[in-house]
């Protein structure tokens, strides 16, 4: 280290070259990390002003309690700038007739808040996970407990799971769009019978018609479920396999049936693994845009999803189209660039990133904890 040491060994060309190569590898690594930090910091810095405000209660409550609306921006003859949702603007203009409205611009979906999309995303994720966990966990139990490792049919199942996991999300979207939105069976009255129905037969005063559910919560949830099932099966199977064989053998030795063994001796120990799988699935599902774009979402919607359940009943609730955060972001990103839209754009991606990354963080932490804790 001492530069003035005359006896220090001189660095050979080889060592210099080697050092450069090593640093190139290090550079590759930190480039990726650097890009990520750049993205996160940019979104946090520019998104935080939408979230918080200077006066109490310091949180921009409007952003979390309103749904997206049209934003109107204008200035009056004194050059004072106004920016509010279109409905507020109409009220304001009737209240202040003596102030001129100059240079009025309307921006779609840029005013108000993100309550509707947040709720929509939440509903989609919950419905999807209920479906996917039901099928995924049962399939994983079958694969891990009832089949041998070298069962031919099971290998076929595993292969299709692996292949399903690699299919692009837009193909799932297309599939879900075609099947659930245009072909799924639905019970309708005669007047609602669509011309495009594939097949219809009379049933209970109306018709069971294969005409699809249209863009709806249920169609979106089913599409997402099919997409995420491979992830859940793989993760659950892994956690079931991790339960030591001795547990099962001990249970059988006590005279328990296979189902009793699974229920009492295997599943309880696999619960943390299933939980991780769930969170992993949520991370994947919440971030997807293409499938719900085709099957479930609308840009604008007057009421919140829960209001429909009162008016139209349970089926009305599931067959309504919803707003969703990723689709809201997609809508925002297609708007022409403008300073007036940016707060909403950054606020939305900040909220979305927090949501998805929160789940991702939980899944990584959970997994690491389980790996450390559960050692038999």
């Amino acid at each position, binding site marked *: 280290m001492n530069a003035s040491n005359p006896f220090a060994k001189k660095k050979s060309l080889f060592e210099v070259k*080697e050092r450069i*190569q090593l640093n*190139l*590898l*290090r550079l*590759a*690594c930190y480039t*990726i*990390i650097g*890009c*990520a930090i750049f*993205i996160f910091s*940019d*979104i946090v810095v520019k998104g935080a002003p939408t979230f918080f405000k200077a006066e109490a209660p310091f949180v921009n409550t409007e952003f979390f309690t309103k749904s997206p609306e049209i934003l109107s921006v204008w200035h009056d003859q004194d050059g004072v700038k106004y920016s509010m949702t279109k409905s507020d603007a109409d009220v304001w203009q009737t209240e202040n007739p003596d102030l001129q409205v100059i240079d009025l611009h309307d921006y779609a979906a840029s005013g108000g808040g993100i309550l509707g999309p947040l709720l929509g995303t939440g509903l989609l994720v919950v419905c999807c996970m209920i479906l996917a966990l039901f*099928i995924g966990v*049962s*399939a994983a139990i*079958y*694969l891990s*407990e*009832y089949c041998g490792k070298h069962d031919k049919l099971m290998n076929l*199942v595993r*292969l*299709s*799971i*692996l*292949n*399903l996991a*690699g*299919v*692009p*999300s*837009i*193909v799932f*979207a*297309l*599939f879900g*769009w*075609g*099947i659930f939105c245009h072909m799924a069976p639905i019970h309708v009255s005669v007047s609602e019978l669509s011309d495009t129905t594939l097949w*219809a037969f009379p049933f209970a005063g109306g018709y069971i018609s294969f005409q699809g559910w249209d863009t709806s919560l249920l169609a979106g949830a089913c599409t997402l479920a099919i997409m995420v*099932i*491979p992830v859940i*099966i793989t993760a659950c199977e892994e956690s079931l396999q991790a339960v030591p064989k001795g547990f099962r053998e001990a249970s059988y030795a006590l005279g328990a049936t296979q189902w009793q063994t699974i229920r009492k001796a295997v599943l309880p120990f696999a619960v943390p693994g299933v939980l991780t799988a769930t969170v992993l699935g949520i991370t994947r599902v*919440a*971030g997807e*845009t*293409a499938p719900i774009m085709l099957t479930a979402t609308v840009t604008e919607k007057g009421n919140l999803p829960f209001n429909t359940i009162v008016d139209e009943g349970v089926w009305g609730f599931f067959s309504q189209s919803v707003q969703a955060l990723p689709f809201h972001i*997609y809508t925002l990103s*297609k708007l022409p*660039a403008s300073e007036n839209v*940016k707060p909403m*754009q950054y606020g939305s*991606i900040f909220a979305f*990133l927090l949501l*998805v*990354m929160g789940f*991702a*963080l939980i899944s*990584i932490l959970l997994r690491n904890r389980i790996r450390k804790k559960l050692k038999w």
Partner: protein
Amino acid sequence: MGLNFNSAGIVKGFFGGNAYLAIVFLLFICLFLFKSGIGFIPAYKNELSNARKAGLEVSNMIDYELKGYYAISAKLNQAFTSEKRERFGEKEILKYVYEEFEGLLDDELEDNIDGYLDIDEDTTEKAEAKTTLLAEIDSACRGLGEKFLLSKVTPRIPSTTSISDDTIDSAIEYAQQYALNDYETPEEIDQILTDIADQMGALGVINKDLKKSSAGLEKLHKTVETSARKTYDILKNNYKLRNSIQKLKEGLVKQSGKLDNLTDSEKIATQETLISEIQTKIDEAKSKIVEVDTEEAIIPIYAALEGHPAIIEKLRAVVPKNIEKLKDIDFISPEAKEYAAAIEELLPQYLEILDEQETSISNWTHETKVSYFAAIKAFFFGLDWKTGSNRQSLYGLIPLLSGSLLISLVAMCFAVPLAIGTAIYVNQFASKREAGILKPAIEFIQAIPSVVLGLFGILVVGGLLKDWSASPLLSWLPGFPINDRLNVLLAGILLAFMASPTIFTLAEDALNNVPKAFKEASLAMGATRLQTSLKVILPAALSGIIAAIMLGFGRVIGETMVVLLVAGNKAKIPNFSEGIAVLGQPVHTMTGIIAQEYGEASPGSTIYQSLFMVGLVLFTISLIINTICQRILARQQR
């Protein structure tokens, strides 16, 4: 499974049934995509055969010839303008600014000027009046402001961004001369136009000659197009009507079938009105069908085509001669020189197009049947994807496929070195603590939703990329500065960032799977750690790393939101002749087209089916990639 009806059997059957759902889903997806997509081929065949019967096909061929000419003509125009700017840039602006001033004087200061001119003698009065007038003119002219002048100049010289003070000063001076000399335009101003005409004359003549020579072809194209469009629209409409009649008839049969089971007289009555409604709908649709005799409608097209060889012959003579003349012109502007060189390069291509199209036009008849194979070929090898226009829809996969592949390739160029380098570093060199932070961090990146990345690309990276590419430090790179904000490079960079964690995780696993003995043996032989990593461990893990790269590629080519938002969405084949500058162009992708056009597609329409065909192609690509990777990984584990 056997038929056990005891409880254990039921439980097992329940779980098993769910497991088999995975296979069912996969099969169902395959079948459904196939079923929905396959209907596309007859529908497209019908569209193509209608286009042929109506003569629209031959109109397309002529359009190709015209497009070749337009490419040359556009370059020529660019050469002309850049040469003109180089030689007369400021002077031409001066002229236009002066013209504005002249108009101003005529409109508003006429009385003042007349007042001055009316003073006969050379007195002090006149000198005073002169100074006042000059000052008035000066202030009036300056009052117009640069912004206004610019708005007047830019329509004529689009490249102008500012008007210098010198130009305005001298324009005012000329305007003053104009006023003093009894409304006579100064000679210098007139001279400008003559100069331009003198020095640019040769180019102008070439331009004019070319325009004249192509006028015949343009006229021919218009005749053929109008005639063909008329027939085609009728045919297309008929096809639609027939389809809906077919559907209505099926409905009619269904409803009539129900009639037999009904006993309640009220219900029978409603059912009968329903049936009669359908019947009227059918009749209505039938009445709308216009029978058209394609044999007769095609006659004017054949008549027009008879003139085609002569026109082409003329073009073949005139175009090369004129382009030959370009060589004699001394270009001052380097850009114009480049354009001229580009035109010379385009010429052989253009002549080739002429040859090709001429033979296909002379061989063309409206009678040959379009086969299914031709429809399949037109889809997989078609060079145009054009939907939504009221002309013929074209569904050619090549623009989308090439866009997808180009973006994926660019993304892999960035992602592979980064991800593999990271994997080697984290696996071999990072301390345990460092690796313990880096690995989850990179996995964390994987969870960034693609739509966030897309919007971030639009808001931030797109602007950065454009600014950087315009910096003089990087101007030596081909294709820089990039003109389009949304382009292949931007999409590639964002996708590389998305794919890196995937490749990293899999590659790191592969490196981890290399037996420890390899490393120990190598180190014992005296190799350094870097040598061991690069020359022993990396080759040993190569198959796993290849699988990682392929899966990364699969992820990139199937990614939708990022490309939909930042790739520019222009469905044309990227112009590879520009070399690496192709990265600055906007393209469209297979995933993007599905997400963009699903809104216009109603079930059963040709576009709906075409989207499923594209989906089927994507599905096949992902299956192939997956299968190969499974094979590689399975072999590695053995």
